[in-house]
């Protein structure tokens, strides 16, 4: 292993030094010469018709450069959607227009109406207050089922209804599933809500647009997980700027969790306005704006049914889900409740028949899209809650019921179209049994009881799918993009390397982990490798970071490019040593001729590539730089088992997490320290969903949770130390690193464990409770206890 850490080393993160010393470069730290500031005047009602906008007084306010309205964007493209779903009947989904600034109507609280560009942010805000709006308030739809009723107010007047699509999967299995239910020995039914969440990366979104009148080049600095995707969507579909005239830079980004994948109106506005006012235009979201303009997550209402035979084998599963799209289709919104959700409904189980129905609904709320896990947490939560409820109804041990139905042979083709390559669900459950100390639970329950607390024990499994792929398949499923990743590996004359990756790091530690891989491949120190990401002018076209894909897809592209480098370097080494290329071996940064003591160092070869005096110029070009694009053959399938122990205060209903343990199978692992950190963060977000977080609207579409005063983010005192284990490793069979991805598992696996534990705690006090909807606030738990 390289002395500063190759694959498998918990190398300390090099990027930490700048973050810890205040020298990071986040988008809000970027200020351009002669910059202006924009403030968006947003709708404070959920639904209304714009009769008139009078900006005359505001335009005369001090410092105002220009005020834009929807009229300025007539003839300009709208914000596009990147995924088109075909419904049960072969029809395309309903896809409404999404203007950069509202045209005709406002459709959710936070919908931008006007943009005031001024010399200072304060002047822009002051002027916005002087704009006179004449907006006729219309009845709003918030509840999904009411939105689908005959005569419900329509979010989009030009659509036939508020139904985006009615998706069935696998439609051909529907009749067989119904027959299996008719023949079942037992059927468990559960209705549940997957609560609406707001991702809340700590860095609010920022966009700085710039235009060079001399060259005609546009630049956008933005808080994005995928700058190339923004360049393509905004350039091609909104503003009509070709890629070679548009540079998108996402520098240090302060967390994403999905909500910084999407292309937002503010990015298009700043790019457009920079040209219109001929000065840079900067927008910095306030947290209050983030609550009403960042895409939200989850918000599913489901009924799930599990059919079992007389021996408690799962025979069929069906679910009906209503999925909230909000007022417009955010970039990947239609894919989340469908292909990222329905395809995971088999879970860890060999249920032979599955049918998933999803109705996606428009409402007068902020658009909903992918949030950490995106579809897989919704699938896992339904499945792992219904299995626990079935165990209760049947009076069997929930872990034993799961084990009985585990998939045990791989590869395994599920009835929902995907093929799991590897996994060992008994192994992760065995590991969990040990690290969570199942055996000691009864003693801990007794100790809690002695303190007057109810202790509960919850276990669940999960399977997820990362590195969504391959491109030709997802294209058939409606994706309007490829899902490959790219890397250019540039070797310098003196032997150092720069990797330009299309994936983006916003907390995941690429700058440390990616060099560990290359250091291992070549046998040099990781400190000789630098990672560049986040600038479309540097990296080749890439798809960015989401769906836990960076190492599995982006890392694989880097491996392929490095293999090309090594192959060429061996040719050069063979020439230098006057040997046959087939005899050249690379180890510890030295090229040697097999069976001899001849060798040349890595640095000798790289120097020869750039100073090609003694060089096979007739056979190969000088230089040492290679690019690879990697399109995965399949998803990867991380899996695991989670255990939560809670205490419930019977007097107040307050739940505290006493212990939390995770046993994950991520395949091979490059940096265990980083992997543990990813799981910790995911678990905290899952605990947040289960106990604390919930975006709430009133019946008129007012957002009730619009700040950290009323949206409960997990704090340090809400969570315990976690026990995380990733020693069970069944490597992925179809990528060169054998890695599966670890970014979302914690958030996918943890909510059902928490809810299972709380239900168990309440039942231990004799309460006949089988389910409480998240978040399990003290009020909800207390009400459940006292009504039951």
């Amino acid at each position, binding site marked *: 292993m390289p002395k500063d850490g190759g694959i498998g080393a*918990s190398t*300390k*993160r090099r*990027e*930490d*030094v*700048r*973050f*810890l*010393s*205040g*020298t*990071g470069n*986040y988008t*809000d*730290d970027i200020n351009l010469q002669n910059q202006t500031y924009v403030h968006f005047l947003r709708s404070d009602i959920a639904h209304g018709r714009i009769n008139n906008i009078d900006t005359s007084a505001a335009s005369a306010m001090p410092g105002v450069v220009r005020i834009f309205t929807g009229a300025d964007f007539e003839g300009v493209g709208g914000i596009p959607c990147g995924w088109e779903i075909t419904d049960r009947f072969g029809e395309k989904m309903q896809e409404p227009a999404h203007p950069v600034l509202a045209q005709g109507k406002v459709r959710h609280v936070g919908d931008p109406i006007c943009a005031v560009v001024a010399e200072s942010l*304060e002047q822009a805000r002051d002027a916005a207050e002087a704009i006179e709006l004449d907006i006729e308030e219309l009845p709003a739809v918030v509840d999904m089922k009411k939105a689908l009723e005959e005569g419900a107010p329509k979010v989009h007047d030009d659509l036939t209804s508020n139904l985006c699509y009615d998706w069935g999967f696998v439609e051909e299995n529907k009749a067989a599933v119904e027959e299996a239910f008719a023949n079942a020995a037992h059927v468990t039914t559960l209705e549940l809500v997957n609560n609406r969440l707001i991702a*809340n*990366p*700590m*860095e*609010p979104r920022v966009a700085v647009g710039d235009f060079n009148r001399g060259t005609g080049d546009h630049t956008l600095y933005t808080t994005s997980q995928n700058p190339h995707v923004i360049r393509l969507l905004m350039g091609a579909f909104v503003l009509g700027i070709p890629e070679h005239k548009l540079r998108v830079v996402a520098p240090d*980004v*302060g*967390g994403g*969790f999905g909500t910084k994948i999407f292309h937002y109106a503010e990015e298009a506005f700043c790019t457009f306005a920079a040209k219109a006012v001929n000065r840079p235009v900067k927008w*910095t979201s306030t*947290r*209050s704006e983030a609550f009403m303009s960042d895409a939200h997550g989850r918000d599913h209402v489901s009924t799930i049914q599990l059919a079992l035979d007389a021996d408690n084998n799962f025979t069929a599963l069906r679910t009906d889900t209503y999925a909230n799209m909000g007022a417009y289709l955010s970039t990947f919104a239609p894919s989340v409740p469908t292909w990222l959700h329905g395809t995971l409904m088999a879970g860890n189980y060999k249920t032979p028949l599955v049918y998933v129905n999803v109705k996606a609904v428009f409402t007068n709320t902020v658009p909903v899209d992918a949030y950490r896990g995106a579809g897989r947490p919704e699938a896992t939560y339904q499945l792992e809650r219904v299995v626990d409820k079935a165990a209760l109804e049947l009076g069997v041990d929930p872990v034993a019921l799961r084990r009985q139905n585990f998939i045990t042979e791989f590869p395994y083709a599920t009835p929902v179209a995907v093929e799991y390559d590897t996994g060992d669900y008994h192994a992760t459950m065995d590991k969990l049994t040990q*690290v969570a100390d199942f055996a000691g639970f009864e003693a801990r329950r007794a100790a809690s009881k002695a303190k007057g607390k109810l202790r509960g024990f919850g276990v669940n499994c999960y399977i997820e799918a990362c590195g969504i792929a391959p491109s030709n398949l997802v294209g058939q499923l409606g994706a309007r993009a490829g899902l490959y990743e790219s890397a250019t590996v540039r070797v310098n004359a003196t032997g150092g390397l720069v990797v330009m990756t299309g994936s983006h790091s*916003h*907390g*995941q*530690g690429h700058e440390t982990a990616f060099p560990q891989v290359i250091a291992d491949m070549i046998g040099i120190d990781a400190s000789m490798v630098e990672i560049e990401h986040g600038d479309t002018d540097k990296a080749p076209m890439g798809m960015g970071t989401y769906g836990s894909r960076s190492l599995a897809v982006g890392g694989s592209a880097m491996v392929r490019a490095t293999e090309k480098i090594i192959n060429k370097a061996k040719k050069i080494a063979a020439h230098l040593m006057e040997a046959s290329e087939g005899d050249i071996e690379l180890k510890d940064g030295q090229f040697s001729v097999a069976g001899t003591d001849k060798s040349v160092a890595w640095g000798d070869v790289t120097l020869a590539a750039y100073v090609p005096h003694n060089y096979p110029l007739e056979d190969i070009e000088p230089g040492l730089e290679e690019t690879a694009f990697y399109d995965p053959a399949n998803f990867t399938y991380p899996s695991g088992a989670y255990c939560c122990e809670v205490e419930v205060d019977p007097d107040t209903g307050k739940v505290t997490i006493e212990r939390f343990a995770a046993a994950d199978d991520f395949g091979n692992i490059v940096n*265990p*320290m*980083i992997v*543990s*950190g990813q799981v*910790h*963060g995911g*678990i*905290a*977000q899952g605990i947040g969903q289960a106990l604390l977080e919930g975006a709430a609207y009133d019946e008129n579409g007012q957002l009730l949770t619009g*700040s*950290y*005063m009323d949206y409960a*983010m*997990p*704090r*340090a*005192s809400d*969570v315990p*130390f*976690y*026990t*995380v*284990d990733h*020693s069970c490793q069944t490597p992925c069979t179809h990528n060169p690193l054998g890695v599966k991805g670890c970014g979302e598992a*914690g958030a996918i696996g943890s909510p059902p464990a928490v809810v299972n534990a709380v239900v168990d705690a309440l039942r231990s006090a004799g309460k006949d409770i089988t389910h409480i909807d998240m978040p399990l606030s003290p009020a909800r738990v207390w009400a459940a206890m006292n009504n039951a």
Partner: protein
Amino acid sequence: MSQVTMTVNGKTATGDVEGRTLLVHFLRDQLQLTGTHVGCDTSQCGACVVHVDGKAVKSCTMLALEAEGASVETIEAQAAADGTLNTVQQAFQDYHGLQCGFCTPGMVMSATALLKENPKPTEAEIRHHLEGNICRCTGYHNIVKSIMAASGQDVSNIAAEVAAE
């Protein structure tokens, strides 16, 4: 506009500010000390914590003019002149107490203030002290561990890590 003068990281800093200008914006926009971050607008998140006359303060809760004559210390002054991280900073790197880095300056400044008052805090005391600092990445596990380690406590017995590596 009014003139304000304060000592920031040991140097005199003077600027013209509006009455409504917050200390955090004076630091970021006029002094270009962009290590101090703004993560919310309700004084909840703590990304903007600095030290004012030795006490941890959310610099979004204080007007720049209120800091007239005060001594302000920010994240930029925590490492040695040659860039060597101080004990708290180094512990955050050693124990992976940060991911995206955005809340980190506030966390480091809050942790430093805690350790000044309470050199050997318990896990519960650390978690309580961080009530006003939100992190969305780490789940707090490694932040709490980093602060315990920075205080010289043995963190090898945190059960969670025994199984992990």
